[in-house]
């Protein structure tokens, strides 16, 4: 594996092995049915940096602060994951009203609720068993909501038809992504399914692939070209992989996470051509499609580009696109709303997919309702429109993100030892850090990834929580961290300052 997850994995394994043979509270753990040796070996390979050890430590430190322990800082700044409220944004009134009406339909009699909210609530409740969001829905999701999603996709893609039967609502996009991988991964030994994923990537993919025992095929985004994707690199990765597995799937995240790049139309066409040539199933993770703010960048959906390339591609390439309510810049994440749209899927395979999703019964109905509102917002002639528009403050939010991404890029690039690419979309920055040899050596001694050592120290000294690049994958010998650019500008400036000061200190300390 080319990523630095190897060393952190080794350390986790080492720690776990040590623990298992130690007496715990005087009772040995030998003799258990479920041990490290008997458990599913794939699960041992699963890691998920976004909620990994550094986050654990951050939570612990927060607890200590609450208990009055003295630290060089008074709060932990959670710059490791997106947090809409760190922006000072309030939840969207319209969404909340409709969901409250759905939860407690007696409120439909309350004249404090606007008519358009009531109308949507009634429609959703009519589609629910027993008129309750507490009833199971069909496994594929409530039909009228799938229809609304299809219409939304059609509108987004300039009229290209979308069939509601090809839409599967899910518990966030993650659920759908894992379901597709579960369906696709098969074969033994050299025929084991290989899945191509970008390095760096969002670690849900590596976790799912490890869990399924699939072969992860890494293709590298080019840091020197603003994390651009080059088809020659895809080809290189694929050809190398063919020696030991059967590559069948290509995953692409656009806009990217953690890197934030927005693929150009040409690049998307190249990827589509490549997938067709090599007979790969394309998985297009487009959850950040609403978060594009860099000048000159535009989101192009894979589906739209596919259709515009003509029937030779659009009627044969097999693809699934994913979206979610969590990542809209206003992120109503707690409801777990998401969907995938499948294209050109063999009907027999679709039947298998339908069977597979039935096992998890149904996605949360509240998430389905939330999704319905995201695709069905108030229209200009409806009473809630003005408030909705203003509470969304969409233009302002995107403009602020653009400004903060510039600020971040500029600031980091002034620090010797940190280089930062422009961020075009999503909500993170993924700068590269140069670490002194001494620090790398120390980290290796401790069985830790060097950027984990760096981030842990930053957390302990400054109370800033970031996620080390090793959690996402990176070119061997390079180090990064992922930071969100969501905090309010003034706070962000402070954070950037502190990181700069820390970096200089760190470099000094390990010189």
């Amino acid at each position, binding site marked *: 594996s080319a990523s630095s997850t190897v060393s952190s994995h080794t350390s986790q394994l080492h720690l776990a092995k040590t623990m298992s043979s130690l007496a715990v509270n005087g009772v040995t753990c030998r003799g258990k049915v479920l041990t490290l040796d008997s458990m599913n070996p794939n699960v041992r390979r699963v890691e998920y940096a976004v909620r990994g050890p550094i986050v654990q430590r951050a939570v612990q430190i927060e607890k200590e602060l609450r208990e009055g322990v003295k630290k060089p800082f008074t709060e932990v700044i959670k710059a490791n994951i997106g947090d809409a409220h760190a922006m000072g944004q309030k939840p969207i009134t319209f969404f909340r009203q409709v969901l409250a009406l759905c939860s407690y339909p007696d409120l439909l009699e309350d004249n404090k609720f606007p008519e358009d909210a009531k109308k949507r609530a009634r429609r959703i409740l009519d589609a629910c068993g027993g008129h309750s969001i507490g009833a199971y829905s069909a496994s594929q999701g409530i039909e009228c909501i799938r229809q609304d999603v299809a219409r939304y996709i059609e509108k987004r893609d300039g009229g290209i038809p979308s069939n509601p039967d090809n839409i599967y609502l899910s518990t966030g996009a*993650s659920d759908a992504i894992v379901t597709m991988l579960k369906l696709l991964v098969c074969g033994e030994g050299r025929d084991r399914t290989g899945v191509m994923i970008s390095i760096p990537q969002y670690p849900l993919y590596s976790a799912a692939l490890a869990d399924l025992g699939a072969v992860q095929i890494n293709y590298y985004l080019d840091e020197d070209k603003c994390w651009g994707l080059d088809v020659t690199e895809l080809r290189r990765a694929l050809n190398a992989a063919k020696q030991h597995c059967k590559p069948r799937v290509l995953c692409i995240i656009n806009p990217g996470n953690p890197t934030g790049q927005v693929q150009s139309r040409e690049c998307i066409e190249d990827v589509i051509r490549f997938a067709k040539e090599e007979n790969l199933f394309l998985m297009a993770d487009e959850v950040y499609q609403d978060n594009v703010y860099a000048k000159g960048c535009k989101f192009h959906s894979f589906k739209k580009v596919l259709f515009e390339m003509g029937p030779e591609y659009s009627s044969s390439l097999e693809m699934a696109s994913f979206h979610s309510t969590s990542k809209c810049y206003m992120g109503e994440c707690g409801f*777990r709303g998401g969907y995938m749209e499948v294209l050109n899927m063999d009907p027999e395979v679709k039947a298998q997919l339908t069977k597979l999703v039935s096992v998890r019964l149904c996605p949360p109905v509240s998430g389905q309702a939330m999704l319905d509102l995201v695709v069905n917002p108030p229209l200009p002639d409806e009473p809630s429109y003005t408030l909705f528009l203003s509470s969304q403050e969409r233009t302002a939010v995107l403009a602020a993100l653009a400004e903060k991404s510039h600020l971040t890029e500029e600031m980091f690039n002034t620090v010797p030892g940190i280089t930062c690419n422009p961020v075009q979309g999503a909500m993170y920055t993924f700068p590269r850090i140069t670490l002194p040899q001494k620090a790398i050596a120390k980290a290796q001694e401790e069985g830790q990834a060097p950027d984990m050592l760096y981030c842990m120290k930053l957390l302990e000294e400054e109370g800033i929580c970031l996620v080390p690049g090793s959690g996402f994958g990176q070119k061997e010998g390079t180090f990064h961290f992922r930071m969100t650019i969501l905090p309010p500008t003034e706070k962000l400036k402070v954070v950037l300052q502190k990181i700069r000061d820390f970096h200089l200190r760190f470099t000094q300390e390990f010189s």
Partner: protein
Amino acid sequence: MSVLQEISSNVKNMKTLEYSLLARWTKQIKEDLRQGVKKPFREVIDVSWGDPHRGGVKPLTFVRQVLAACLYPQLMNGEKLPVDVRQRAQKLLDGCAGWSRLVFSKCSFSLGSYSATGGLPEIVQRVSEFISRRDGGVPSNPENIFLCCGSQWALTRILNVLVNAEAPFPTGVLTPAPCYSTTPLSIEGLGGVVIPYYLSEERGWELQVEELHRALESCKGACHPIALYVINPGNPAGQVQSRKSMQEVIRFASEKRLFLLADEVYQGCVYGETEFVSYKRVLSEMGPPLSDTVELASFHSASKGFMGECGLRGGYVELVNLDPAVKKYIYTLFCADSSPPVLGQIALDLMTNPPQPGDPSYLLYYQETQHIRSTVVKNVKKACEVINSLQGFSCQAVEGGAFAFPRIHLPAKAIQKAKEAGMQPDTFYCLRLLEEAGVLASPGSDYGQEEGTFHIRFCILLPHDVLGELLQRLSDFHTQFMKDFS
């Protein structure tokens, strides 16, 4: 050539349910009814799911008021909502630092909830307190509790850790027959093998330990059994296990080195004489060494019981006596998963901490739950009476759970007809029941049953009048069916 010519063999091996045929027919029939096609009935009574709300049971007012107030805090201005609703919502919203942030943003929510478990720490804490109270004081550690998107989700995750698809022998899980279909499907989907142990119908669907022995013997050399899955109260069969039986199961699991999976989602639905006691409690009361060594995962959910909030997807698993090294990996698995939806977590909080006597909402809460309870008790009594009075139909006592699972003694002619149609006999019966009487029930073949026996399953968590209508249609149909095929 399609990339998808080959898909996961585990997925392909998952049984396709007979129910899916019935579901398709139902869709067609509902469409026909909408178009005004004349049928012997005006609407389809769908009792194929254990879904109280779908059946017409009303959600609990307190629960829904708190949910609404959490979602839209403006509702708490003024006096419209009872004081305890407002207090509870406020508590949930204030909770730990920035709870409202936690509610509305998955990401910081997950950070805040990552204090060793999945789920909001305050809610996990209260769930653990509930468990301890329920079990007469047996301690419950929040670090061993994971909230998730429904109990099935948690079960699949634990199975994922247990089932080793790469081992030379497939992993086996002892599973009751009959057993509701989702669990065996999960096992198969993971590449595991279902080892059925038959519940004894003549003895009220009792679990007999001799049968466990037989089942284990039967799979020698074919697979490596690692876990024993029990459902108590049962689904589809409505038995509630006796303490003695549970002790036997625990001893068996210990002796045969099996991980115990206790699906207890129907613990709130008990109507007979046998009281529900949790596996954890029984285990604890058996004392060491068993209480310190038998590995157990217990599952519960807000989907069943009086709340019946299936669509909110709130469930949890509690782990007992797990190897700490393995638990670390289970943490990671749960963390990599979707964090449980907010409303589901709130539902769990309300389920484990309902209004208490003296609270303003208590009276209404008590009335509503009592109403549901007495309705179900009436339903169970009536269903069993009606069915047992019909020829060729018999039903064991329903002590708990959400379903009746009567046996149909099908005449040879009917079995023959079914074979000709290429269907399981009880599927044939259910299809006819659907077409002629507009009742959607599920066939026993989907659950596993002794060879040569046939059953149907239908939900009894319904308003009493709906059940009445259902039983009327069912008995008319059954009588006619038996006549036609005599």
